[in-house]
């Protein structure tokens, strides 16, 4: 067995020796980077996109005035979106539903999954507050009909109602439903649905660009040693290790 491994291992090692990596010095690298032109407007748009998506309304408004960058969404709608999202995060699901409906009545009418998840969250909050009878009635009146319409909803509903069966909910198999993470999950669904209704993507572009940077660096690592960005928050170029 081990002999076999060695034979297989051989070509790999040979290859490694054959392709010695190219070394790019800091000077060369900086020169190359200097040749890349990036338009200021594009940078501003990326910043604006980030502010808008993350919900920094006032910053976005100031940035709009100062930089002259027009957002592709009416800034006033950010407040509405953030308010709906926040309401879910705080457990005020009814309030969140009203806000979504005020924003655009079509969203929950055409997105049964989101509607169900909001109702499910409402049920979870009732259970969290110990309102057992109200929770049961709500599950029966509001959620059961949705379960009849959709098999996967029914399964989720059963899982949620199971919370009522345990004395110590924090330590039961479906206890994760009571976690903050469940609220955040529902809240981000609300966020994504509102953005989608504005024909907007659900993720900001800046993180995608940084992901792309990390990916590109790891591709390049195989071919060259170069000043790398290891810390994204400082974006400093670090000298390549000597080969």
């Amino acid at each position, binding site marked *: 067995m081990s002999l076999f491994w060695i034979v297989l291992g051989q070509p790999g090692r040979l290859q490694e020796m054959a392709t010695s990596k190219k070394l790019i010095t800091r000077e060369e690298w900086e020169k190359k980077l200097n040749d890349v032109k990036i338009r200021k407007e594009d940078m501003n748009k990326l910043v604006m996109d980030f502010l808008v998506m993350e919900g920094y309304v006032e910053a976005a408004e100031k940035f709009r005035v100062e930089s002259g960058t027009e957002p592709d969404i009416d800034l006033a709608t950010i407040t509405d979106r953030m308010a709906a999202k926040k309401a879910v995060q705080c457990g005020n699901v009814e309030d969140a539903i009203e806000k979504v409906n005020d924003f655009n009545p079509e969203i929950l009418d055409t997105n049964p999954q989101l509607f169900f998840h909001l109702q499910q969250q409402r049920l979870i909050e009732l259970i969290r507050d110990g309102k057992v009878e109200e929770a049961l009635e709500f599950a029966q009146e509001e959620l059961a009909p949705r379960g009849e319409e959709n098999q996967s909803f029914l399964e989720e509903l059963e899982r949620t109602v199971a919370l009522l069966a345990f004395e110590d909910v924090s330590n039961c198999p479906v206890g994760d439903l009571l976690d903050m993470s469940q609220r955040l999950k529902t809240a981000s669904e609300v966020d994504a649905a509102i953005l989608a209704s504005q*024909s907007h993507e659900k993720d900001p572009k800046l993180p995608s660009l940084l992901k792309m940077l990390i990916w590109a660096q790891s591709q390049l690592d195989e071919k060259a040693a170069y000043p790398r960005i290891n810390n994204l928050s400082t974006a400093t170029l670090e000298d390549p290790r000597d080969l």
Partner: protein
Amino acid sequence: MPSTAAAAAAASSQPDDLIRRLRSSDGAVKLKALRELKNQIIGNRTKKLSYIKLGTVPDVVGVLASSVGIDSGSALIVESAAIIGSFACGVDAGAKAVLEAGAFPHLFRILSNPNEKVVDTTARSLRMIFQSRLAPKYDFSKNENRDCLISLLNSDNENVTGLGASIITHSCKTVTDQKILSGAGVLRMLITLLNGSLYQREACLEALTAMLSSNSEVISNFVDLDNGRALSSLINLIEDKSPRTRLLASTCLIVIGRTCSSYLQGIELKNKLILILIELLEEPDRVGDEVPFAVANLIADREDLQRLAFEANTLDKLCDFLQRETLRPKRFEGLLLAIAELCSRLESCRSKFFSLKVLNLVTDSLKHDSADVQTAACICLRNVTRSVKKLSAGHFMNEMVVDPLIQLLQDSSTSVQVAALSVISNIVVDFANRKSIFLRCGGVKELVRLSQSMDPTLRLNAVLALKNFVFLADNSSKECVLAELTVSTLVSLICEPKVQEQALAFVRNILESGINSVEHVFTEDGIIVNAIGKQVRNALDLNVCIEGIYALGNVATGNELHKEAVMSQILEPQVNGPSQSVLIKFLQGNNSQLRVGAIWCIINLTYPDGPGTSSRIAKLRDAGVICQLKKLADDPCLDAKFRVKTALLQCVNNSCAK
């Protein structure tokens, strides 16, 4: 339990109290009630239905109508318009109630309101109504309607342009509609709007599909736009980031390709389209539900595309999805139809289908709750049972397949019955001679029952199935069918214009195996033979003549009595035609099948050693038949030429023997 009641009241007030407050003269009370109603019904089908039943819709439309033009009316309009739209969304009863309450003209009028929020909500609400099949068709031939549509499409508000597109999608149904809109420059407007937001783009793609569907003239207008740039931007959209855009653009392209295949020519584009659709099958929501229908539409009647799709493993993918749990009926139906189209022509697809072991799943779905799924399952089975290889192996003639199909013959929906008949017609052909299973399951009884149905389509398809059942059947099976059907029913089917071709073919199949079977149709003084003769002499339909003369030819294989009966039928002059006999007419005819049928008839009538053969030959000679036969000695149809030789030889030998 007072605590629960109190809690419930706090959560949502009682419907009758809410309705009372809707009717209040106090604007603030009204507004609060509207908001409660809105938040109760949005997304909630059950609540919508119960409020519709309580008659709430006219109240809401009343608030809408009375709030126009008054101060602080905007908030009331926004809320009531949102409610009206929600009632119409996804619930037919809601759309009906909204239309009956007269919401339409009010909403249209409000579109010109200066308040943007009001216009947004109203346009959305109207769009919801237009997405219902119950919405009235918008009449594009009226100038004012056309102008209104153009102004909607020209709006800066994307909810309003989206409404314009939805109106087209809903109402552009005829070639005339398509031409009017194309003539009014709507194509170009839609193309421009494709550059807008996602929402607007998708609405426009649907409208575009409605305008191009089956209309080669409008399609070529579209293709000529901006030197083909409109078409290429459409082609680009099939690779868009949004799955729904990809589907809608593909659907539009399929519509173009089905009418004008030259625009969907390149193999690369076809392959790309197939791969995109396969990938979209994975989409969980409405998009994924609609994809299989697009696949079916793409490959229907197109063997080249079926082959490409097959090579791209489409069948494996479709069958894989079919086996997943909790399929929504819509998606289930689509998958079955797409599989059906793939297996409609290519035997390679059918054998793949059988190797994927989904036959049981498809037969099980014959018992599905949804009639659409049942029909689709039948269509799928009909196409896979076209496999002669599997048929001759008796693959389908077992209770598991036959029983549920016979059940469907009693279904309340005619389309389900017809679909079930189409499968039965295939499987009863069964060369493996297991037809008795079908008899035992009560299938023949049901077919005979449907052959006397009030619905002509059912009658036709039932007789067709019976015809296939008696094909190469043993004598006892044939006897059972005839006993069940009765002579008088058969005679009336032979005389019924649309059904007679199949009825005559049924007789032909019954008679295919010798003298015993001839006795079957010769009961009651040969009224069946008389009926056949009459149809053959009078029929204008070529296929009826062919089936009829073959049936008579088969009767002529019987005894002297049978032969004489046939003689008198075919030598009798036609009723309204020239004085010559129908036999001469067929021999002179252009159709080779008809000539061969007539010659076969003569061969059987002049078969040697019969006591009456000589006299029949004499009669045929007197009627000019032998003379006519001689003219066919060099018939271009080899079959006819060969049979003529036999017939003439029989006649000559007989004369020599004398």
